[in-house]
Structure formats: C-alpha cells, structure tokens
C-alpha cells in the first residue's frame, strides 16, 4: 500500500474544483486513457488573472489529488505567476508523493503549461526534440530533458517515476541513459553559479530537513547542520547515529548523495570534530 500524506488523501477524498467549467477561456489536456491517466484542466482567464479553474482526471489517488491541489494553487494568480509553477511546487503543496507517483505531479504541470501556451496562442514549431522516446507512454525527448533538469534527476529509475518513460517494454532505456548522461554533463557548475551563498546554504538546510532527517529519525537517529564552508558541509550526528557503526557510510552514501542530487554535485559532507 502507498504511503500517502494527509494532504494527498484529503484532496483525493474531497477533491476541489472538479467537473466541467462552462465556457472556459482555455483548456489544457494531457495523458490518455490508454496510458492509465489523463487530466483536462479548464481555466477562466480575465485581465491576465486566472479567475476560475476546474479539472477532470482519470487516474489513481495521487493523480486526482495533484489535479485538485493545482486548481487551488493557480486560482487568483496572474498568467506570469502561474507559468512559474512546476511539478515540484505541486509535490511540496501535497506534503510529498511516493517516488513512483511523481509522474502524477508532472501531469499537473504539463496540463497547466499546455493551457497557458494555448492562451498565449504560442504554437511552438515541432523540432527534433519533440521526438517520442518512449513509445509505450508517448513521452517526448523534450519532456524527459525538462523533467531531468527541473527535478535534478540522477538515475533512469527516477526518470521512469517522474515521466513513466521506460516503464513499459523498456526498449527505450538505453536512450534514456544517453539523455541522462548528456544532461548530467551539462549540469553545473553553470547552474550553480546562479545560486548565491545564502541560497545555497538555505537549500542545503532545506534538503537535510526534508530528505535526510526524517529517514534518520525513523531509525532513532538525527543530524544537525553545523556550518557550510565553501563546498564543505559540516554536520553533527545525533541520537542512535552517534554510536552507529555504519554512520560514516550513511554520511557518504546517503547524506552526501542527497545533497549532490538536490544542491550540487561538488559538496562534501564532513562530521564535526568534537
């Protein structure tokens, strides 16, 4: 059974803003009944502001919850504000989603982008990058690259969790590996320079609080961020972690890996000297 957050269950059991919106200004439709999930997002836009939003979703609990919370997030927002919303914002609002369900949040983002593109009348020329990589789920190269960048993905398995690509027959997995490799090579240090020192520290703290500490706390341990010095992240272990023989491995294989994934691949985790 999936572990859904309270918020996901609330939005699934009591979906907000569902059903047809009469005379929508614009509609964004993604997914299909063949793939197993689909979302139709209907917006009423007046003077550049999203006055009303409704959805219709075919899919599992987290697909319905993602759609429902998205409508709440965008109501009252300007077009410019709404354009900035990504799948990560949806996940954050929902209080997290199981890894395997991340594609539900991506579906929400895609429907929103589709609707806003339609509103602006942008018809982007179909380029090489629209090529379908995953035939089973009709996932384009553009979508795969966008999602890798946006969510700092580092493995093919994660690409499958976020986009479904590679989750069917698996024939496209070598191609996914190639795309991932290219994207990883492109990543940082360029991306990094955009972050100020303060932003970097905040992101490190946020990552430790969100990704690291809950996992350690489940085993009776904990970890505190002491300082950040350049690319050195100085931490102190707490609770059961103090005497744990595998604490060093945890720091390298788990904490450092998470920081590489969410902040920067150049960070090094160091335990505070007593």
């Amino acid at each position, binding site marked *: 059974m999936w572990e859904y957050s309270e918020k996901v269950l609330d939005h699934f059991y009591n979906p907000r803003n569902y059903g047809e919106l009469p005379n929508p200004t614009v509609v964004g439709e993604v997914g299909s009944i063949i793939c*197993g999930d*689909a979302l139709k997002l209907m917006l009423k836009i007046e003077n550049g502001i999203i006055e009303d939003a409704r959805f219709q979703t075919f899919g*599992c609990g987290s697909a319905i919850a993602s759609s429902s919370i998205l409508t709440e997030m965008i109501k009252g927002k300007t077009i410019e504000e709404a354009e900035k919303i990504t799948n990560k914002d949806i996940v954050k609002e929902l209080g997290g989603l199981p890894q395997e369900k991340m594609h539900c949040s991506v579906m929400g983002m895609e429907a929103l982008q589709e609707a806003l593109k339609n509103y602006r009348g942008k018809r982007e020329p179909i380029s090489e990058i629209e090529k379908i990589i995953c035939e089973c789920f009709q996932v384009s190269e553009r979508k795969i690259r966008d999602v890798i960048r946006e969510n700092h993905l580092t493995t093919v398995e994660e690409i499958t969790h976020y986009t479904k690509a590679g989750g069917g027959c698996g024939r496209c997995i070598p191609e996914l590996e190639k795309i991932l490799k290219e994207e990883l090579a492109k990543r940082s240090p360029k991306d990094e320079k955009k972050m100020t020192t303060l932003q970097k520290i905040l992101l490190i703290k946020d990552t430790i609080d969100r990704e690291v500490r809950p996992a350690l706390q489940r085993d009776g341990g904990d970890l505190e961020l002491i300082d950040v010095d350049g690319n050195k992240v100085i931490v102190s272990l707490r609770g059961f972690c103090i005497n744990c023989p595998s604490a060093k491995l945890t720091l390298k294989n788990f904490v450092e890996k998470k920081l590489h994934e969410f902040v920067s691949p150049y960070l090094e985790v160091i335990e505070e000297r007593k």
Partner: protein
Amino acid sequence: MDRVVYLDNNATTQVAPEVVEEMLPYFSKLYGNPSSMYQFGGSVAKKLKEARCKVAELIGAEPEEIVFTSCGTESDNTAIWAALQSYPEKRHIITTKVEHPAVLNYCKFWENQGWQVTYLPVDELGRLDLELLKEKITSATAIVSIMTANNETGVIFPVEKIAEIVKSKGSIFHTDAVQAVGKIPIDMKHNHIDLLSFSGHKLHAPKGIGVLYIRKGVKFQPLIIGGHQEQNRRGGTENTPYIIGLGKAAELAKNYLSEENTRVKFLRDKLEQGIIERIPHIKINGDREARLPNTLNISFAYVEGEAILLLLDREGICASSGSACTSGSLEPSHVLRSMGINYNYIHGSIRFSLSRYTKEEEIDYVLDRLPVIINHLRNLSPYKAQE
C-alpha cells in the same frame, strides 16, 4: 476502522480458528524434532504423519506423494527444477502468458540460461487453445507448466485434458494449483498430472507452508539439498506446527468444498449480478463458464483501479486491482493484457474474492457502497460513454 469486509481471499485468507488451536501446542509444549530417537520427538512425528495423510486425502493422493515446502513459490520452482535436472537433454519448457510470477519469472530465468520457453497465449476470455499446445510439445520439451486456475480472473484451465495430452507426448506436466485446491475438487487418482503445487495460506492455513505433490514414479531432483527429511526430496527440519496446521486446514477444506460451490458461489453470483444491475459500462473479465466459485474480476470503464480501491478501503472493503498504479509498475496486469482487454476497461479492474467466512450482509454492503464510489469517480473523469 470499525468494519472490515474482506474480499481479497485470492491474496491470502484468514487462518481458521480450528487451525490455530491445532497448531499452538507445537510451538510451546511439543517442540521436539520429529527426526529424534526419543518419545518426545516421536509423538510429533506421529502427528506429522496424520497431517500428511489429511493433506493427501484432500487431493486424492498417497501420503508418500506429498512433500512439504515453505510456500507455493518454492513448490513451483522445485517442480520445474526437478524436471529440468531429470531430463538435462531436453531444453524446452512450455507455460502460459498468464501464469503467476512464481512460474513465469522462473521460466524467464531459465530462458536467460539458454533454455527455450514457449509462452502460450490466451483468448479474450482467458482460455487456452489446446490444439496449439499439441503443436508446441516436441521430444525436446522437458516440462509443461500450466496453472489450474488463474489468480486474477479465476479462469479454470482443463488441466486433466492437458495432462493427457502432455503424457501422450512423453513430457512432464506440472500445474500450479495454488488458487484451486480447496475451491474445486481435485482427485489425483483420476488424472495424469505429474506435479502439483499448492499453498497453505490460500486455504485458511498460515503463510509459510506449501505443498508439492509428486506422482509416484515421476523422476525427481530436490531443489533444497540437506538432510533426509521428506524422503530426501526437501532438506530442512520440518516446520511442524505449520504442517500440522495445514493438515487441519486440509481436513476443513474437504468438508467445506461443497459449500464453496454452493453458498460461496451463490454470494459471488449475487455480487456479480448486483453490480451488473446497478452500474453501467462494466465488463466481467474471464470465462464465466469455467471459473473459480469465489472469484469475480470486473472492470469499470472510464475510472482507474487504485482510486476505486482507496475509496473501497475507506468503507472498510478489501479488494485488489490489476491496474498499473497499485503495483508500482506502470502497466496493467500481464493477465488482462494477455487477454487483450479494451483500453477503456483495462485500468479499472477490480478483483473480489470470497471465502467460507463471507457473509451475505457483507455482499449487500458492497452493493450499497460500490455504485456511489464508481459514480463519484466517473464524475471526476474526463472520459464518458459515447452515446
């Protein structure tokens, strides 16, 4: 949760209270090893023998033809292993596309090792083409492994006919009867099945005990090699409390067999008919003519299975689904895909599986709640029936 309506008995069953009672002394007071030379172990050995007889009786076998294992999967693996080891010159296996992973993935393992594997297709009702089977068996076929009844749809394969075909071609026939034993009559005296697997926890015994039936005279090689237990056919100290529990469960199953096919079947049919009357755009999956009496696999168009299960769960109703989202894989069940179920229906499948403990009021309760749930999800869905 105040109310639990358990309709997922093909996944696992409640251990019968009589079985628990029978097992308890063998955890505490009577813990001796049945292989020991003293009385304290000997009394356990005697009880074990009784249990073996009861299990044999349930399927019309001889006690010596029963080998206790740890689970259905071990029994399935052992059966295929034994045939491949006994006939090393034969490097071909035949199975079906709709087997349980315990057989399907084990065959895939052998395929990767260089064996040739034929996966027989099924039609839209989940039935096999026996003429195709006849064509595929050659002198190189070591084993044919075909399930007795399908866990998802409950569709029953004509294994007695299949056993005759396989025997006439000189191959070994194994059947995974995990879902069938205790639900439909099986009599090994009147068929030609060489190897048959089943599992305790599907017939009100605990998890962690399985059976492999090996017909007298069939060549065998153990998978688990160790002591002399189970007449050198499965090493490892006997799991005495569980074997004794399974003995009791087998005795009960024999007594309840007619009820399975009358009262339980009546309740299943009532559920099926009730859904047909109350909810439009549905599809019964699998052959209704040859189906386990306790199983109903039904698809609801335009809605998704996991969402149905979550809403059923909120009402205390336990069922399962072949939808992609419930498994963590991204594709719906291999069984429904093999049957070529239409895309409007394939993601919205629900399996209800009943047992001797199912009450009529529970079926009435499901029939009361389910239409509300489906209606709600259809209101959310962008897909509608085309007029």
